């Protein structure tokens, strides 16, 4: 993975598999504290302690067709490379929170990359759940929710290409406004 946004795309699939009906992705950038924090939380089926220990320990998967899962391991490696860490908190029946913390200025921290692209593709799957994306930058924030989109489009499917392209451009424009202009690391 070359971008943090690709890790987000990957990890949110876990929340979808856990049958969450609300998935929240929060990216919080605090330049003063030199910290970038990504929090992915869901209200899906959660994990018991044993499963959680397994996920924390190795390349785990809940799939039965193979024994190896790499999503969390790769995300953790990316965080640790940039003087950060990854934590998982989960409770059976309540949901899971994945938190990855990075040193913002670390030369080994991956760029955020195409966040709008990630959110657009996740929105395409958001038929049975809602996706909330919150980006905090220097005290200001931008919030996107598929709930708002669904309210407007009513029974038009959210995965219609035109709707998805709208979501992409909408997020892209609002992020640029939040940051006060284009940023190199956001493609």
């Amino acid at each position, binding site marked *: *993975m070359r971008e943090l946004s*690709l890790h987000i*795309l*990957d990890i949110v*699939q876990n929340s979808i598999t856990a049958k969450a009906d609300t998935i929240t992705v929060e990216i919080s950038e605090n330049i003063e504290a030199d910290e970038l924090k990504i929090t992915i939380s869901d209200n899906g089926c959660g994990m018991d302690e044993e499963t959680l220990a397994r996920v924390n320990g190795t390349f785990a998967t809940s799939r039965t*067709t*193979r024994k190896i*899962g*790499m*999503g969390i391991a*790769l995300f953790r490696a990316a965080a640790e490379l940039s003087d950060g860490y990854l934590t998982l908190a989960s409770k059976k029946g309540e949901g899971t929170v994945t938190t990855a913390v990075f040193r913002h200025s670390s030369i080994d921290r991956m760029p955020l990359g*195409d966040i709008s*692209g*990630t959110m*657009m*593709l996740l929105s*395409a*799957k958001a038929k049975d759940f809602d996706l909330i994306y919150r980006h905090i930058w220097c005290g200001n924030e931008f919030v996107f929710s598929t709930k708002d*989109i669904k309210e*407007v*489009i*009513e029974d*038009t499917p959210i*995965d*219609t*290409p*035109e*709707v*998805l*392209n*709208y979501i*992409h*451009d*909408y997020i892209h*424009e609002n992020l640029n*406004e939040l940051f006060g202009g284009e940023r190199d690391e956001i493609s």
Partner: protein
Amino acid sequence: MKSLEELRAIKEKMKASVNDRNENSDKIKVVIGMATCGIAAGARPVMQAFLDEIAKRGLDNVTVSQTGCIGMCKLEPLVDVFLPGEEKVTYIKMTPEKAVRVVNDHIVNKNIVSEYTIGSAE
């Protein structure tokens, strides 16, 4: 700046075309592998290219969806194209450029792009 008005206009346009869509059951399906392996190999820009090209050409009988890993990770990004009444075609090692060509040649003009298919790799 994108406004909700724009989104409403898209909805109205879709509503208008939904009847034609229901009448013809000739739905074309594009399915893209979007597991860890697919994502790492570049499936996201491939899917974006499909959505872009399909919206640009106004092809409202095509659906684009995502699936998990089907066990051929070294050939990712993998894309399956289903034309009604025909066998599934699997494209391997896709790129956004290849995606545009698959839309134009295969989905619009019904000519399979054989050099991108899994058959050509074996």
